[in-house]
């Protein structure tokens, strides 16, 4: 029966990838706002708990109302993601389900039940539980969402950097051997911190934008001002945190996914003393000719910055795409194999596995089996390469990585600047605020009347519009981060272990194409409904 199942068309792989990407991108429109708003409404309700001032209760309930509309869509898209691992990536589910399934199960037991229980108390328990219990429920709803993020990011981080596992030739799959290595891998910790903190930025930007709309309309001013003050602090801490954790993530990528880093930088040929690309032209619509070109057109570097980022050393060696394809030798003499060599060793691993299973079935001697196992273990790190037919398959699509990375970093810097300006506008920080505001006034950015105090209720309308426009930009920034993370890992489902074409289910492409379009229509319609409801709720305001 060994040669059955060989008729899956290549379209199945592409449509399966497209469907998963579609679901993940939609899911990520709702999750960061859930995580971000959870912090804001938690702070507002804490203020209510401490002061017993009904104003704070109104503030908390208003943000909770918007949270609820968004939360439902996060739940709806989330369930699809979990089940798509089985429906569309069945081979993957078997090959690494022993490791990958555990975080998903723990997520369900620890996080989903917490969210679903306490979100009900948060909405329906105002008159049924004590204020302290209600406050705890509000925070636990957010904590549940955050714990959920932890476990799903543990699973995702493991796909980027598989640790704590071993291949079992008897069961033909990878199996977990160290739970803590999986659950607390440095990649998971970095990914969790960067992702959750960046979600708080989305929440903060959203709250500030809604509040600015009220200020522009001269209504709900008290709510708007306190919300801006809370969101500004959350946003400032989060943007600084995201920058720091982003740097750590970058260093981890350099270490374990050098091809992703090379694609992000469009670094065709690496070396020591590498600069970080500040400006360059990479055609967004076609893969560049990295094998023949020296570097992208109009490239302007920040000297040594890439070497510092990747190795903490201005003279550190950073491999480019061609180095990774053709193999290279580090300054310390360490030789990295070429992709062709890895393919050869991957094929040897697969062949040895086949020989081992055959020999075992035929009752071969212990000595023979041990020799085969030794060869298998030696070549197992390259197992996934054995499914490649051409070394160029190892290169991800460079334009998406290059531009998505730049959009993420560029918009991230803009958001940092935005929250810095908001902080000095909304708070009276001794010396700093007054000097900065006067500087802004002298440049004509804010009116003279706003220079001497932290009154943000009377700024010109264009200031408020500018803030509102930042909402979609913040989302683009957040989604770009995921594009870098996931496109950069291509062609791997699990780095170096399993490529996408060895991970899919045995489906005809037309089936997956059909479900892709059903999801596209469904999610888009629901998103339109959600936006419609959110806008109406905002227009109605907290007193509704």
């Amino acid at each position: 029966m060994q040669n059955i199942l060989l008729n899956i068309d290549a379209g199945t792989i592409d449509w399966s990838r497209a469907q998963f990407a579609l679901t993940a991108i939609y899911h990520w429109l709702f999750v960061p706002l859930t995580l971000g708003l959870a912090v804001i409404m938690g702070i507002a309700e804490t203020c209510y708990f401490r002061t017993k001032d009904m104003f704070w209760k109104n503030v908390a309930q208003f943000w909770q109302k918007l949270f609820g509309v968004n939360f439902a869509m996060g739940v709806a898209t989330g369930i699809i993601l979990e089940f798509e691992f089985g429906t569309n990536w069945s081979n993957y589910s078997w090959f690494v389900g022993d490791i990958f399934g555990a975080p998903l199960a723990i997520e369900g037991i620890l996080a989903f039940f917490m969210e679903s229980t306490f979100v009900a108390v948060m909405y329906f328990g105002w008159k049924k539980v004590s204020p302290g219990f209600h406050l705890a429920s509000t925070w636990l709803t957010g904590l549940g969402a955050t714990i959920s993020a932890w476990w799903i990011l543990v699973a995702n981080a493991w796909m980027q950097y598989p640790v704590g596992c071993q291949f079992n030739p008897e069961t033909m799959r990878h199996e977990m051997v160290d739970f803590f290595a999986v659950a607390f891998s440095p990649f998971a910790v970095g990914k969790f911190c960067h992702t959750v903190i960046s979600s708080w930025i989305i929440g903060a930007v959203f709250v500030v934008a809604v509040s600015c709309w009220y200020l522009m309309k001269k209504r709900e001013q008290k709510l708007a001002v306190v919300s801006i003050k809370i969101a500004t602090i959350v946003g400032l801490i989060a943007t600084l945190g995201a920058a720091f954790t982003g740097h750590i993530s970058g260093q981890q990528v350099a270490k374990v996914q050098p091809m992703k880093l090379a694609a992000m930088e469009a670094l065709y040929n690496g070396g020591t003393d590498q600069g970080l690309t500040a400006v360059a032209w990479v055609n967004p619509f076609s893969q560049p000719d990295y094998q023949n070109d020296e570097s992208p057109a109009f490239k302007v570097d920040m000297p040594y910055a890439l070497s510092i980022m990747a190795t903490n050393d201005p003279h550190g060696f950073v491999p480019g795409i061609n180095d990774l394809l053709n193999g290279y030798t580090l300054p310390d003499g360490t030789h990295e194999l070429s992709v062709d060599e890895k393919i050869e060793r991957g094929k040897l691993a697969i062949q040895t596995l086949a020989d081992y299973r055959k020999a075992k079935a035929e009752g071969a001697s212990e000595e023979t089996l041990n020799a085969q196992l030794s060869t298998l273990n030696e070549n197992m790190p390259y197992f996934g390469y054995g499914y490649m037919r051409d070394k160029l398959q190892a290169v991800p699509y460079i334009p998406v990585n290059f531009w998505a990375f730049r959009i993420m970093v560029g918009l991230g810097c803009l958001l940092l600047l935005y929250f810095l300006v908001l902080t000095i506008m909304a708070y009276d920080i001794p010396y700093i605020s007054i000097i900065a505001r006067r500087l802004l006034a002298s440049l004509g950015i804010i009116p003279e009347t706003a220079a001497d105090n932290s009154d943000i209720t009377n700024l010109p309308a264009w200031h408020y519009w500018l803030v509102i426009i930042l909402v979609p930009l913040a989302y683009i920034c957040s989604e770009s981060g995921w594009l870098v993370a996931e496109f950069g890992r291509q062609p791997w489902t699990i780095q170096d272990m399993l490529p996408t074409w060895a991970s899919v289910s045995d489906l005809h492409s037309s089936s997956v194409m059909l479900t892709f379009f059903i999801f596209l229509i469904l999610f888009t319609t629901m998103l339109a409904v959600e936006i419609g409801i959110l806008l109406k709720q905002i227009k109605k305001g907290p007193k509704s």
Partner: protein
Amino acid sequence: MTYEFLQHYWCFIVSLLGAILVFLLFVQGANSVARSLGYTDEATRLVYNSTGRKWEFTFTTLVTFGGAFFASFPLFYSTSFGGAYWLWMLILFTFVLQAVSYEFQNKLGNLLGPKTFQFFLTLNGIFGPLLLGGAVATFFEGSNFIIEKNNLINTEAITPVISHWANGSHGLDALLNPWVLILGFAVMFLARVLGILYVMNNVNDKDIRSRGSKLLLGNAIPFVVLFVAYAVHLLLKDGYAVAPDTGLIFMEPYKYLHNFLDMWYFLILFLIGVVLVLFGIGKTIFSKDYFNGIWPAGIGTVLVVLPLLLCSAWNNTSYYPSTADLQSSLTLANSCSSEFTLRTMFYVSFLVPFVLAYIIYCWHKIDAKKLDKEEILTDHAY
């Protein structure tokens, strides 16, 4: 703690989650009869608000059921979900529609109008339990798949996939089997029965309770008929047995009857469950001021479904049999995770009682006062 014990333990946990899920399908059942229970728009809204406070438990249990199955029996996850693609996709579609419907239906700015989302709730209410029941039936009736792990070592394959559905329908073929449909409809009517019992208990409204009593009979009769028909069929049919020493699968006459007799404690649980379900239904129909039927019927449902699911897997039985290639059938031993993973998850499962405790406490707090029209007007409502 042996590997075999851990396999059985995780089968028990997954089955328990499945049993609780069937009980929690009262949310779907009540939504499917919401218009009949609610005599006016206001009363229908009461029904939706009553189930709206519980829908997340059903949803979360479904997700956790999937996650636990994935973690403990990944070969089932990859074979069934990837193979019976359309069956699972249909289930997912109905649950996705439900997830947004509560929150969106009565909100201003809802571009599709409240009726659309109420239609989605009805759709999920009917097809969710029907399809889930059908999926459960395949544990006894078999599915059309082949597994060949050696495909992984074929580097010439375009995609070295190990699990293969043996026909092009990808799971829809299950719905052509009348016994799959019978169990599917039995679960659907059970969900409606439980839904009516739950609403009668949870909503303080005389008219809803009076209509519930009448509706109950109309749904309980088809449920009992279909359930008894399937139970008799199951006890008399040949089952998929596993030879414990070789792992070979073979057909054994009266296998599930043997399972119940070998594991007599399951038979007792099953019978207690049946009695409790019938008691909950009967007392609610015949007593005008008894509205607690959801408790005996709900507990009874768990006690019926749990042994039923365990009988599909324990006692050397293949829980996901293949009708295309008998030896591809899934057993606890050939489809489970490694001993290390099952052991790790065993310790994680100690958290379950803690989770259950806070769910019960919060549920008790929220339900201490029964839902009425006034609460909908003055409090947060869907």
